[in-house]
């Protein structure tokens, strides 16, 4: 173990040592271990090879509105990982939606198509009636995220290759999080039309076509015609990881969040004469999306002192034994926040937590994942949720400034 000492105290290099950069490449595990667990003789603090404390995130910056030809965009950098997100809004006419004219007869509540929303004018104010939001956004696919890992973002990403499993999996995670957090309100995406009340002329016109029945007469005279949805905005959310140095999800999600906060939709209305949707090109008419909350994602990786613990011919201790052991002695693992590319190569067990904070400062967990190992359990997760809460404050400051 002469080499780790050498990296810790480079002023007196022993004759047969490697420079730290080479040691890092040849023995990555031992190199990181030497930093996190310095020999007790040298009064070095336990620190990661990249100079961060275990629970420290990399320097994060966000910049919104950087792309001009989108409805909203953002660039987020977390250390050397950089993600660009552009949001493009396109109109989808309800007549082009095959399932729009379909209503499920009562009884099957599995997929409720709410074709006659206009019949319930109260739903507009009712913010908590999220079921309709869900139905519209999810069933009609109004949010379409697509993540690509661009050529050269890291070695191994070659031009012309099919979207990698990683890219597809990240796309799904973003979509799934957009759905489960209900970040975007369906009402922001609806284009309504209020048919004018034509008064007494209408029954006459009707008479020309077909004989009036009682029902229609009643509804026509009783109150004004219900509003109807003529179109939806579909948001194409394209994310590009332009540089990948570990932890792509946090960067991608932050970019999506910043871009959606930046997104402005033009004012759009139904033109009766031309039977089409018309958009205003005045910037003043455009309005921002009113997002629900600010879910922030924090990812962690577990670095184990014994790299081979998983397959070595040792008995894997039972949980109870492990707890007894964990209390005494030096830690055998470190939970590293926001792992960089180098650290990710040495990590098997990961955790990812997405939290949001309410106005009173209470932390709500929106997603919590852990996989790939057996060392992280309740106590660690509780700490990670706390760290994620602090990260939320930091990210809110960064996103509010951009």
């Amino acid at each position: 173990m002469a080499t780790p000492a050498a990296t810790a105290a480079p002023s007196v290099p022993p004759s047969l040592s490697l420079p730290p950069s080479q040691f890092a490449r040849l023995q990555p595990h031992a190199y990181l271990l030497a930093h996190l667990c310095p020999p007790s003789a040298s009064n070095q603090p336990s620190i990661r090879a990249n100079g961060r404390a275990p629970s420290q995130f990399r320097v994060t910056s966000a910049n919104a509105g950087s792309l001009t030809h989108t409805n909203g965009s953002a660039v987020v950098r977390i250390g050397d990982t950089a993600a660009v997100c552009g949001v493009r809004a396109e109109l989808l006419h309800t007549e082009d939606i095959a399932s729009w004219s379909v209503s499920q007869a009562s009884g099957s509540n599995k997929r409720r198509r709410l074709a006659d929303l206009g019949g319930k004018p109260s739903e507009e104010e009712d913010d908590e009636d999220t079921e309709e939001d869900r139905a519209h956004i999810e069933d009609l696919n109004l949010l379409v995220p697509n993540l690509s890992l661009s050529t050269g973002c890291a070695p191994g990403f070659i031009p012309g290759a099919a979207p990698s499993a990683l890219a597809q999996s990240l796309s799904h995670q973003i979509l799934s999080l957009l759905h489960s957090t209900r970040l975007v309100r369906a009402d922001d995406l609806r284009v309504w039309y209020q048919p004018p009340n034509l008064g007494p002329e209408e029954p006459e016109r009707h008479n020309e076509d077909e004989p009036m029945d009682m029902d229609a007469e009643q509804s026509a005279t009783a109150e004004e015609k219900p509003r109807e949805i003529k179109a939806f905005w579909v948001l194409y959310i394209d994310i590009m990881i332009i540089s990948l140095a570990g932890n792509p999800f946090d960067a991608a999600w932050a970019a999506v969040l910043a871009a959606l906060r930046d997104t402005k939709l033009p004012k759009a209305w139904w033109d009766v004469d031309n039977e089409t949707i018309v958009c205003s090109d005045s910037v003043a008419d455009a309005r921002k999306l009113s997002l629900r909350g600010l879910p922030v994602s924090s990812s962690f990786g577990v670095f184990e002192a014994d790299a081979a613990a998983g397959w070595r011919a040792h008995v894997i201790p039972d949980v109870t034994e492990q707890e007894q052991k964990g209390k005494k002695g030096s830690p055998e693992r470190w939970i590293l926040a926001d792992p960089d590319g180098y650290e990710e190569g040495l990590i098997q067990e990961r955790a990812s937590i997405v939290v949001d904070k309410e106005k009173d400062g209470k932390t709500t967990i929106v997603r919590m994942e852990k996989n790939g190992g057996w060392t992280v359990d309740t106590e660690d997760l509780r700490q990670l949720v706390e760290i994620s809460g602090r990260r939320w404050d930091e990210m809110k400051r960064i996103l509010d400034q951009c």
Partner: protein
Amino acid sequence: MSKEASLSVAEREFILEALRQDSRLDGRRADQFRPLNISFGEEYGHVKLELGKTRIIVRISSEVTKPRDDRPFDGLFNINLELSAMGSPAWENGRTNELEAYVTHVLDSVIRRSNALDTESLCILKGVSCWSIRADVHIIDYDGNITDAACIAIMTGLQHFRRPDAVVRDGQVVVYGVEERVPVALNITHKPLSITFNTFNEGHNVILDSTRKEEQASEGELVIGINNGGDVCFMSKFSGAPIDAMEVVTQSKVALDKVKEINAQIEKVMQTDLAKRAKKGMAEESRATNDREI
């Protein structure tokens, strides 16, 4: 290594020699199919088929979509086949291979393009909405002749499937849940099946329903798609050794007999299953009324 491991010399020679003596490894006659076993899952159109050791699962599903712009009166029908490592270790997941393309082509020709499923009957509202019917074929154990087996399974599934009832009211399409209105059977115009012949020993031996090892030892293949009425809707002499033209004619007769026999079997298992369902449905209904009375 997307190919099956090749046969050993001993196996190839033995299979050929046995055929010369009119024997097959499993004791079948040349024109005999392996035991065919068809059963159904809980849902309509969920078929589990066993043909000897070849096993297939077919699932039929439906959804409402927009018809194609150039065919506003037609619904959609697609057959989807993807070979996975489950059926054979020789097949790699996520990669297409020649066999997959070939079998898909035969199934498409025999069933879809012969219009066995009347796609016009799938139209709900012209140019606006129609049914899209999808057949997913899972080959879960491959021991030869997946073409014929898949054909039988898909045709059984199409006949067994029931889609929800839908009506047009005031320009609105109303889809009824299964519990509200009796679901509707698909409109099947005819019942074609494919029959695959394999030839051996310079065309002296022609057998039906080859196992995987017999397929590997075979010199040529002839596929005939034919329905109960004797209308040939597909014929392929894709590769391998040439076949005498007259042989094709005589084998068409063999194919016709086979198709009639198999279609009769399909009909029988299907009626049994549907009767069972009807009985179960009635029992449930009466239980429901009893509950109400109490």
